[in-house]
Structure formats: structure tokens, C-alpha cells
């Protein structure tokens, strides 16, 4: 095991068995397929999957799916304390684009047995959603609607997101565009002012870390693009040769090899706000690079 102790979080880089990983979220098929092709040809795994103490995948669902699909024995991970304050759980709201009024969405919800109720303002929607943990919200401009489903349809957070996924599929069938936006965006005045008449935001149910752990342990999988984990620090550019993780060696041996491999590298720390390989990182970074 190779450890990096940050101010608030301990990053434990180690190798574990692929079959010990617990996913909590589904994958987007075309993203997964592309990644399978890439991993078949790639020689290295750039970044380890981030997992909790129980090997629940917090970041890297697609990489996990690919490692399982391609029958790897082992996988390098970065293990963290999920319940640390430095790990926040956010979720993704859905933005429906190119829609004319609430009509099509309301019709779909009603057909699926959902109950729609107008609420007076944003604060009221927030309050109602706190009272009804598996309810959704619909926002169009300054108009807010609470959406609830009967307990027989939705009785946990995974079920709520499953229903949402079905609504989403029906909207896509109607040629409407779906995009994902961080849940905090709706508190940003610029975002709300910038909303077009043809855009509707679906507020997704709030999720807690306990729900993620519970779902993963019960092998209940959330719909793709449900959770968004903000982890205060992460390792980057580990670049481990992936063929190692197919070898018929013991876990101890491959883990020791991986540790030695990391020890031979240099690490540079960066504060939040850097862009690496086309991605903006809000977190502290520990970038591995070759010793010259």
C-alpha cells in the first residue's frame, strides 16, 4: 500500500480484487463501450478508481465496469474514508431542453402514476423535498412543481432514480434533449436568470452517503449520473501498466509491485483550480510523474 496523507484525507493507493468492488451506479452504455475499446488498446491505467472502506466505487464506475467486462483479476484503487467531511455527496439535476411548456413532461409523469402539485416558490420546493425524500421537483422559470409517486412505485432512493430514468427515456423518445447539471447550480442566480423558456430543470431526490452504502451492499444500482462525489484530494497520472492486473499472481505480490512502482515516481501537489488533461479539478491534486 502507498499512502498520501493530505491535510484532511488519507489516500491509500493499493491493489484489490476486481470482484470485491461494489458499484452503486449504472453506466452509460456508449461511454462504457468506448472505454472498453480504449482499454483493449491502452497500455496504462492513468488514474485509480476511488473507493471507500467497503470497496464501494465512489469515482470510476465506468472503469470498474470495463475491468470486470475485460476479466481483469485486480485493479488499482485509492481508498478513502467516505464519511470524512472532506468527501461531499452531490447529485445531478436533469435539464430538459427544447421543450414547449410543461405539458409533455406532466403527461409522462401522470401516465406513470405520479402526483403533481404546484408549490409557491423555490424555498417551498426545497422544504417539501426534504419532507418527501423520494420526491422530485420540476422548475420552469419561476414556476415550481413537486412530483411524488406512490410507495408501491417508489420506496427508496434507487427506485426514485429508476422512475426518473424512465421519464428521461420517454422524453428522449420525444426528441427532447437531456443534460446533467450539478445540483448546486439552481442556487446560482446567473444560472436561473439564464434559463430559457424551452428549458425545464428536474430536481432529483436528495441522496445521503448512507443510502449509497446501503444500495451498494444490497447490490441495488442507482441510475447512471445519479451521484457526484466531491473528494477533497485525488491522485492523478499514476499510469500503471494494465497488463499487470491480469497476471496470475497473488494479491500481496501485485500490491507490493504497485507500491514499488509508485515509490519510484515523483509526486507534485497542486491546490484546487487546475486543469489537467482537459478536466478542471476543484480538488487538491497529487500528480505522479517520472523521476528524471
Amino acid at each position, binding site marked *: 500500500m502507498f499512502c498520501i496523507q493530505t491535510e484532511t484525507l488519507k489516500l491509500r493507493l493499493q491493489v484489490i480484487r476486481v470482484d470485491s468492488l461494489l458499484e452503486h451506479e449504472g453506466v452509460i452504455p456508449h461511454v462504457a463501450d468506448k472505454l472498453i475499446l480504449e482499454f483493449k488498446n491502452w497500455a496504462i491505467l492513468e488514474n485509480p478508481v476511488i473507493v471507500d472502506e467497503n470497496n464501494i466505487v465512489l469515482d470510476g464506475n465506468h472503469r470498474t465496469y470495463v475491468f470486470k467486462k475485460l476479466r481483469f483479476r485486480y485493479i488499482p484503487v485509492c481508498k478513502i474514508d467516505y464519511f470524512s467531511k472532506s468527501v461531499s455527496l452531490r447529485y445531478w439535476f436533469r435539464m430538459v431542453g427544447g421543450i414547449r411548456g410543461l405539458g409533455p413532461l406532466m403527461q409522462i409523469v401522470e401516465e406513470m402514476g405520479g402526483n403533481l402539485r404546484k408549490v409557491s416558490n423555490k424555498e417551498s420546493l426545497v422544504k417539501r423535498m426534504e419532507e418527501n425524500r423520494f420526491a422530485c421537483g420540476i422548475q420552469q422559470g419561476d414556476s415550481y412543481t413537486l412530483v411524488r409517486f406512490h410507495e408501491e412505485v417508489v420506496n427508496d432512493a434507487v427506485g426514485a432514480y429508476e422512475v426518473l430514468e424512465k421519464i428521461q427515456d420517454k422524453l428522449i423518445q420525444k426528441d427532447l434533449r437531456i443534460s446533467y447539471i450539478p445540483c448546486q447550480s439552481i442556487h446560482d442566480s446567473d444560472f436561473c436568470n439564464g434559463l430559457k423558456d424551452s428549458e425545464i430543470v428536474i430536481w432529483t431526490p436528495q441522496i445521503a452517503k448512507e443510502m449509497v452504502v446501503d444500495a451498494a451492499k444490497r447490490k441495488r444500482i442507482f441510475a447512471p449520473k445519479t451521484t457526484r462525489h466531491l473528494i477533497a484530494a485525488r491522485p492523478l*497520472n499514476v499510469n500503471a501498466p494494465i497488463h499487470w492486473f491480469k497476471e496470475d499472481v497473488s494479491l500481496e505480490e501485485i500490491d507490493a509491485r504497485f507500491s514499488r512502482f509508485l515509490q519510484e515516481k515523483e509526486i*507534485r*501537489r*497542486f*491546490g*484546487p*483550480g*487546475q*486543469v*489537467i*488533461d*482537459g478536466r*478542471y479539478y476543484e480538488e*487538491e491534486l497529487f*500528480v505522479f*510523474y*517520472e523521476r*528524471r
Partner: protein
Amino acid sequence: MSQRKKIVSLSTIGLDSPGLVSKITTKIFEMKGNITDVEENCRRGLFSIFLAVDFSASKRSVDEITRSLKAIEMETGLKFILGTFDEHGMTPVSEDENYVVTILGLDRPGIIARVSTLFHKYHINIENCRMIARGKFFSMEMAINICKMMTGPYLSHDEAMEKMKAELKDLCAEMNQSVVIQKEDTFKRLKKIVVFDVESTLVQDSSLRDFVEKIREVSKLMDSEAKPKDDRKDEAQVLIDNAPKLKGMPIRDFEKFSETLALNPGALELIQILKSMGFKIALLSAGFDCFMKKIFEVSGADYAFSNTLKVDENGIITGELEEPILTSATKNEILELIIGMENISPDQVIAVGDGSALSRLPKDMGLTIAFRPGDTTTRADGIFSGDQIINILYCLGIPKTELDKHLKRSP
């Protein structure tokens, strides 16, 4: 004793028609000639070709060969000029001694004459010359060979080259032209990354000054005892120095200030075109990440490093910067890291900055271009004096057809 080679040079010009190259080269092949050098051009319906052919393997006499080649004149309507040489009279091919000089700026009479006179003074041979852009905007690329360069009594070959480069930079500055001088082998090396020093190349000077001024005003208000530095030469350093004085300010207010920062005209288009050509883009800034984030969001850069102000849980600036602090002096370390991450060599990097930013970068960069440097003595390969940063594209050795294609596509 080895036999001297029979070298025949052939230059020809005339109206273009299909099959000209085939007719000439087939005849050469029939006479057992080996083409050792060739340059063919076709411009505005006119065809020209230069060939150096080794006829050592041919049993024919030089007179017979030239007569046979001349016969093609009748058949094609081309005008031929033929000459014979032996190999000792010719300059050996040595890429080590070849440089590519790119000159660009608004067109004016006398550019080629003055530059070629300077080369003549140093006994430098112009081996090739081509226009990349014509019209109001002028861009020309010259391949020069310095193997017979005059060094003078006290200078080494390298010192003489540096002296010539400095003179050429001064001459071009005098004519309001930008100039880039690169070794041909490095010029030909496939470049992978273009690195921009953000403050000195992409951000408008006036907007950066306004931004720094605002920060100064605010930091005075936040800390009445503070005496902000008055060094205008390195605005980014002023930002870093004043960070502690921003303590207590909401980060949102600070981010609003950064809205005054504006990009130089063409900067965004340049990045987009470079990306569409397959280059990776790295942005290095000793300023703050809020502005870098905006550039990143609109340009899609591959790497962007800058400084981040620490904020507390309420979004209030603590006055501290996240370590490590990126300064003009530490940008080279970040660049080395990027080179390592991309697994490329430094000569595959193009760096664009002002003179001082470039002077701190590793010495073996593929190409360094100083954008509007304070003085022309910078050790950069090129000095770009124009306002339109997008014209840097003309210095990268991209074929004109390729360049036109991307420029047409740009918004």
C-alpha cells in the same frame, strides 16, 4: 581513386500542362541519371522545376545528355537552362547548418531585399524562399544554409550565428516585421504542445492593468497599512503579493473583478485552431484561477495552471494562496511536469510568452516566440511584434493549404 561525379543541373519554366514531370524524369531515368535534388512549383498556371541529377552511372557524355534533355523543350514548350558541375563545386547537404527564417507583418517594399542583403553580408546562402501569405499581410519563409557563414576574426561559428540572429531581429523590428529563426531539424520535428504564458500573451494589457489597479484599491481598503508594490513590470507578481491583503473579501466579489479581464483579439480563435490541428494547449498563469477557469471553459485547453486563493467555508478569502504558488520563476517546473505527463521531448513544445517568461523556460524548447517583448535582445527563436496573436500560426511551419483550411473554418 574514385571517379568524379557528373552532376547536371536543370532549371525549367513554362506553361503548366499534365505530364511535364513525368516526361522530364522518364528521360533522365532512360539515361541512367539519379535525381539527387528536386524542387517543383506550380503557381498561377506557370510550371517550374529545378533538378540536380547525377549521371555518373551513364555511359553517355555530358554533351549527349544535355542535348537529349534540351530536346524536351520542343516537345513541351518549356524553357530549359542546363549546367554541369562536379560534386566538389557543390554545397554538401547538412541539415545541422540549415535554418528556417519566417518573417511576417504588414507588407511594405524592401523586406526581401534588406533581409537577403543581411544574409549576403554574412555569406549565408538562401536555399529556398516561399511566400506563405500575400496581400496586405505578408509572410515569407526562407530556408538558409550557414555552412559558409563568415564568422569574423574573433567569433566562433555559434557566436557569429547569434550575432546574425540579433541583427536580423533588429532589422525586422525596424521594418515592423516579426521574425522567427529555427533550426531546420527542430522546425521539422512534430510539435505536440503549445504553451502560453497567459498574462503576457492572451490577456489584454490594458484589462490586466485595470484588474491589478482594482486589486490594489481593494487591498488598500482591506488593509489600510498595506503599501502595495509599485512594480508594473510583472502584474501577476503584484497579484500574488497582494493576496494577503484580500483577506475578508467574499470570493464572489473578487470573481466579479476578474470580469474586467479580456483576451487579446484572436487569442481564442488561435487556441481553437491549434486544437483543431491536433496540438495540445497548456496555459500557465501566475494570476488567479477564476480567470483561468473562464479561459478554459471557452477554449477547452488541455492544461491550465494558476494560483488559487484559499477561502473559508463561507466563501471568504483567507488571504492565503494554495501551495505551491505559481510564479513566473516556477512556470518552468510546471512545463517540465507537463512534458513528462505527455511523454514528449522538450523540442516538441512551442512556448509563447514575453521575453522574461521565456528566459526562464528550459533551453531546449522546440520553438520559443516572444510576443511583443519589451526589447529585441530576448533569447527567443522569434519575436512577434504584431497585434494579431493569431498570426503566430504562420510561424509553425504549417503548409499554407492546411493553414487556409483552418483559418476559413475559424469563427
